[in-house]
């Protein structure tokens, strides 16, 4: 198919058929703010923050859903666009609490970013009492908290659940001013089909959904991501472990929906995202133990290794190498499994090496 040539803010941009105006702008390094749009989700054009003006078109277009077309001339920051965009954001802020200080998303909030970009401090339409405070905090599960007072009705969580998690745990309910995101009729999230994969939490642009295990473990700007693989099942999902640089501890686990290396393409389940606290459990073994007088007692590495090595050697010389057995592990790395079978075969001289592959 022939490629499309258009102009954005006077710059000529060439793109493939089927791309949206937003994608074409992004590929040319031109920023258009968005809220309901996320590249991992199907576009819906709900929030109207991404409006642009196209020559010859009367109404403003949502760039996240409008396909780029040959010869199109688009302006992303014209006075008309900026005015409309500001109006949209102020209407959202009208209902949105401005307690950013205590919000878990502070510093990682797309609404904050847009308000900052547009120079909006508060909604000029707001009157006393407008801000929504009606929704009690929902936190009856150990994974995430829902503060629907902050919800901007972008619907990303619904689309995350439908198109990534492939459940349909939440949807828009009620009409008009009462519209809100909920599990179906009178059920709590805990009673719904939700499997707490947390994908909606990561994709929520504001602080309406926030991870619970991360609370108090670091502000977004204190964290740095380490890309690694989930320690649980064999799918091998790529994860981003968010480490607090100050404490050296895990503060959160997320995924990268745009990662070129990820087999899971950002998708995860509840274990990948929320089952990491064992790492910092107080029950972790921190010192070698050696049994003395029937009890396991703390020992130095030298003593423990010496005891183990001497014991293995003695059994080998008394009863032969095949009187020793080695259990390797499906939860250790390739490097570690490789060394374990070398220990059995090369150092001890037995093929008694296996792991619980079948269990």
């Amino acid at each position: 198919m022939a490629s499309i040539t258009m102009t954005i803010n006077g710059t000529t941009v060439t793109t493939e058929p089927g791309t949206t105006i937003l994608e074409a702008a992004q590929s040319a390094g031109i920023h258009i703010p968005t809220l309901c749009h996320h590249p991992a989700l199907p576009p819906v054009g709900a929030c109207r923050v991404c409006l642009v003006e196209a020559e010859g078109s009367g109404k403003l277009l949502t760039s996240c859903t409008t396909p780029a077309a040959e010869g199109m001339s688009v302006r992303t920051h014209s006075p008309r666009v900026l005015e409309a965009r500001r109006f949209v954001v102020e209407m959202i802020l009208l209902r949105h609490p401005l307690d950013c200080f205590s919000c878990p998303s502070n510093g990682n909030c797309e609404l904050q970013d847009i308000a900052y970009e547009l120079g909006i401090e508060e909604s000029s339409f707001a009157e006393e009492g407008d801000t929504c405070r009606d929704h009690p905090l929902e936190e009856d599960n150990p994974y995430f908290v829902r503060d629907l007072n902050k919800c901007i009705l972008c619907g990303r969580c619904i689309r995350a659940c439908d198109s990534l998690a492939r459940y349909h745990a939440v949807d828009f309910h009620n009409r008009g001013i009462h519209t809100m995101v909920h599990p179906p009729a009178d059920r709590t999230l805990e009673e719904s089909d939700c499997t707490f994969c947390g994908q909606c939490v990561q994709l929520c642009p504001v602080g309406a959904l926030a991870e619970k295990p991360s609370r108090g473990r670091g502000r977004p700007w204190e964290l740095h991501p380490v890309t690694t693989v989930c320690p649980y099942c064999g799918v091998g999902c790529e994860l981003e472990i968010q480490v607090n640089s100050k404490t050296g501890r895990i503060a959160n686990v997320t995924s990268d929906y745009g990662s070129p290396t990820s087999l899971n393409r950002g998708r995860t389940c509840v274990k990948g995202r929320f089952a990491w606290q064992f790492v910092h459990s107080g029950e972790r073994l921190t010192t070698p133990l050696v049994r003395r007088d029937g009890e396991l007692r703390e020992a130095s590495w030298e003593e423990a290794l010496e005891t183990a090595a001497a014991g293995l050697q003695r059994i080998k010389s008394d009863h032969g190498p095949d009187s020793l057995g080695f259990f390797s592990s499906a939860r250790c790395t390739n490097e570690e499994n490789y060394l374990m079978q070398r220990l059995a075969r090369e150092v001890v001289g037995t093929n008694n090496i296996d792991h619980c592959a079948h269990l």
Partner: protein
Amino acid sequence: MKGLGETLGSGAMTNDFDSLRRADVILVMGSNTTETHPVIGSWIKERHDQGATLIVGDPRKTEIAGHADIHLQLQSGSDVALANGLMHVILRDGLHDRAFIDERVEGLDTLRETVAWYTPERTAELTGLPRERIEEAARLYASGPDSAICYTMGITQHTTGTDNVRSLANLALLCGMLGRPGTGVNPLRGQSNVQGACDMGALPNVYTGYQKVVDDRIREKFSTLWKAEMPAQPGRTVMKMMEAAGSGDIRGVLIMGENPMVSDPNTEHVRECLTNLDLLVVQDIFLTETARLADVVLPAACLPEKDGTLTNTTRTVQRVRKAVDAPGAARPDWAITTALAGAMGADWAFRGPEEIFQAIAACTPSYAGISYERLEEGGLPWPCPAPDHPGTPNLYTEGFNRPGGKARFLPRHWKAPHEWPDEAYPFLATTGRLLYHYHTGSMSRRSAPGEHVRELFIEMNPADAKPLGVGDGEMIRVTSRRGHVEGRTAVTDRVPPGTLFIPFHFAEAAANLLTASVIDPDSETPAYKITAVRVDKV
């Protein structure tokens, strides 16, 4: 693994995730994929929503079965009969792929003979399925155009597990559903590095990359490489080592990161065996039920605390990276093993995981082209024999890993399970995994899911709960010939009448107190899926 190895040449998943996402028909056997492999489950559902046909074979009404176009709610332990019945219909109606078989498979005649017996009527009787469903499933799978099979423990953890796998491989071969995207026979691996542990030769009969211990040339190669005489006799499996510990033939055992006291069948027997040892050394991150029995416990680092590689269920080697420091004096297992080998006189000069990986690549043809440098760009599926080789997402596009490049049908007859409900033990108990927990629970139960799903729930059909007078959430005791566990009921029609489902993640109510240490003689996999039990109200 063995069943696939014999028929096709390798025991791994034949195809990758992208392939699965192109299938027209997906046959999921004995796998509650959305709970045990949730991300794969999400792709199966996505593909189904895009129009692919989903067939699920499982005695339980699992979440994924709820989405199926056809749910084959077969009798536990009748998988071979079902597969043979499907092949009977396919051959009877001439739906098999003649060209594929002529060119690439041996042994059609013996297959034809075996499956001739499995008429839809007989299959219906053995599986408990209506014959129309069997016929319909057979036609759908055979007509594809691209059909993929996925399976997990529900297939392998039977005394006939290997026969179950062989039968599924026969089915795929019969319909030419191998060697191109969208097809394949795909065992989904349960733990993060089952594939890698096998690839690395943590098996009694092979070195890395499945190089055979009994092959003189191979043994010679490793004797030279590691400067030590390699033992010629294949070793014992986990199950056989445990037995030998009990009988005194094995005197010392080293366990790295496993908890057989909870994961292995017949827990009491395991305790007797392990306490009978002169020496038990355990490397782990927690003082597990097994570590408590040890003479020496060595504190290990967990995955987010170390560098290295894992090989996922699609044979893709991926990098893991250290995010945080290990607590106290805990060390990565590679460092522990290196130190222990040193204390026993070896002089391995490895300074870190990358150097160890280079040694792996140097002695393992299927890993030869993989390096840490290349893995920075993304995972690589083996075989990857050279530094410029892109890796192999789909196996058998050309030939099979067998003499002449041909696969072979290995037809098997259905055999009755080792144990079956009777008057004294009238229920059939089956063990398995939950979404929220992992294996013996030592990691997941110390994390957020531990607060969510705290205790054992035993699924029981309302038709069984009623006559026993037990309601939802009431305590029951489940007793087998080996032992008993207690737990609350979850009364649900997810399980068929006469069947209980018992998750195995809970050490204090270890489901494996019940299970027999009966194993599939071919693969030595324990038969967790069928135990005859009795139920009492507590």
